[in-house]
């Protein structure tokens, strides 16, 4: 009995050590850059563990006044939101057809769309790079918007198809009886009922677009067209030894993702699970 108690105590201790470790590695890096953004450059270099002596937002003010920070923020907001909304509309339309109707080539198309999940993300980078150059969209916001629309194809289709499948057909039939049009049945009956799926897919795509680096880096050239994750890389050169400002910029870039996550924790976690389960 005593040995049993000891064993259980050890398991308990081990469990909590693992959990504390998990929390530390997740929070400490972010807390460190946030706290440091209120310290002087000298304090950051000499006393890395110390707390700031006074709280002022000078570093933040100077980051915000920097030439391109606001336009980079604007780009990120514009590109992420518009590509997410357009993608949601596109994939909701397709998912609706897949969920509720039979048509020639349905199976083949669905398999083809699903297979895109198996292609490692950057493998198609050259053709996309050339396509953007060819269409004269290089170094424009539009280039990133259309590339990002394509990013969530398979996962969004899975999530949205499942949502539409769960909406009873009787509702559609009743509406058709009252001579509602195809579009009305989709837009006024099905779309509102698929809210949860739309939120999950939307958040997943938005976070992906907001944080995207590879294409953002490859498809833009001028400072004012960069998105925030890309601009960060150039800030590190620009600020070279002004760590206070750099840390303030890092905090400003990471904060929106964290806030969005805190507002929609359940959906984000749900979207990870549905994104991982690839049928």
């Amino acid at each position: 009995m005593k040995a049993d108690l000891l064993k259980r105590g050890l398991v308990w201790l081990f469990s909590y050590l693992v959990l504390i470790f998990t929390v530390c590695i997740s929070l400490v890096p972010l807390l460190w850059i946030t706290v440091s953004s209120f310290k002087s450059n000298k304090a950051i270099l000499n006393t890395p563990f110390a707390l700031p002596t006074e709280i002022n937002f000078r570093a933040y003010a100077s980051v915000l006044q920097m030439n391109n920070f606001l336009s980079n923020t604007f780009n990120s907001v514009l590109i992420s939101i518009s590509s997410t909304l357009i993608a949601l509309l596109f994939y909701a339309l397709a998912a609706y057809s897949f969920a509720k109707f039979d048509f020639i080539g349905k199976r083949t198309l669905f398999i083809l769309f699903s297979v895109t999940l198996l292609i490692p993300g950057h493998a198609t980078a050259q053709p996309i790079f050339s396509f953007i150059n060819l269409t004269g969209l290089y170094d424009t916001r539009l280039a990133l918007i259309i590339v990002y629309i394509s990013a969530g194809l398979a996962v969004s289709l899975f999530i949205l198809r499942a949502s539409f499948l769960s909406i009873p057909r009787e509702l559609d039939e009743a509406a058709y009886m009252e001579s509602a049009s195809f579009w009305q049945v989709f837009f006024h009956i099905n779309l509102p009922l698929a809210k949860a799926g739309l939120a999950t897919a939307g958040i997943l795509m938005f976070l992906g677009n907001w944080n995207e680096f590879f294409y953002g880096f490859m498809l833009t050239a001028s400072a004012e067209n960069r998105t925030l994750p890309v601009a960060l890389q150039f800030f590190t050169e620009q600020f070279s030894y002004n760590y206070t400002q750099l840390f303030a910029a890092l905090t400003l870039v990471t904060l929106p993702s964290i806030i969005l996550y805190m507002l929609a924790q359940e959906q984000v976690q749900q979207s990870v699970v549905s994104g991982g389960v690839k049928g």
Partner: protein
Amino acid sequence: MYKYNKLWVYLFIVPTLIVFLTFYFVPILTVFTTGFTEWNGFNAPKFVGFDNYKMIFTDDNSITVSLMNLLKWSLIATFIHVPFGALVAFIIFKQPFGWRFVRGVFMIPNVIAVSAWAIIYRFIFNDQMGLLNNFIRKIGFSDFHTNWFFDSQYAFSAISLTWVFYAVIVTLLVLSDLMAIPKELHEAAKIDGATEAQIHWRINFPLIRGSLGTSVILSVIARITMFEAIFLTTKGGPGNSTYNISVMLYDGIINYEFGYANAVATIMIILGIGVLAITTKVFKMNKSVYN
């Protein structure tokens, strides 16, 4: 049937079909075919057979280094990253005090930009101001000095440390499988006198093999496509010791060696499908868990 024009059904597919053709179908065909050509994007591609592949494997050691790194990182992913994520899932599953908080917080590194995370880690590993070295010096090794990302001895480990313990996706996948196990199974096992360890080995592990397999696939494919964590820290250096296939592809594209780049991309796709096939087999993912 109710009256609607069948055309609508097809019309609804069209936008997605256009996206698929423009960003997946045509690009993938381009990648496969132009991998056999010499092409700089300005002239027409010239068929050269397997020359690009010969070049990749004989010109220098980039591919050997990249594949070795991929192999090592895949082993780290399979034997440290996934088990750690699963361990956290097993602990959280018991719902100890604060489990919701841990699950919530563990997700944060995953929702912020990978580029921001890479840059933060560049400073954590900085010798003078970085958290890690200062911590090591504080706990007694006052002479410790290492420039993690710039020392060929440590650069590989430093890059590994930027992701190895951030396994929240594994945790969530395993957790959802654990929660799907019928409670009766555990109760029945306990009544039959099974120990905790037996329940884990005989019931839980076989039943979560689907999510473990998915986790291995996702995390190994993430190693194939890993870009920011290298590009923003070591750029593949020192020398080319932390080079990988994604950075190789990127370098090919920006040097306008499109044929070469697409041969690399083809290798990438084949690796991805290989990982999927092997893992599906090992974890028996095509067989139903409950029957």
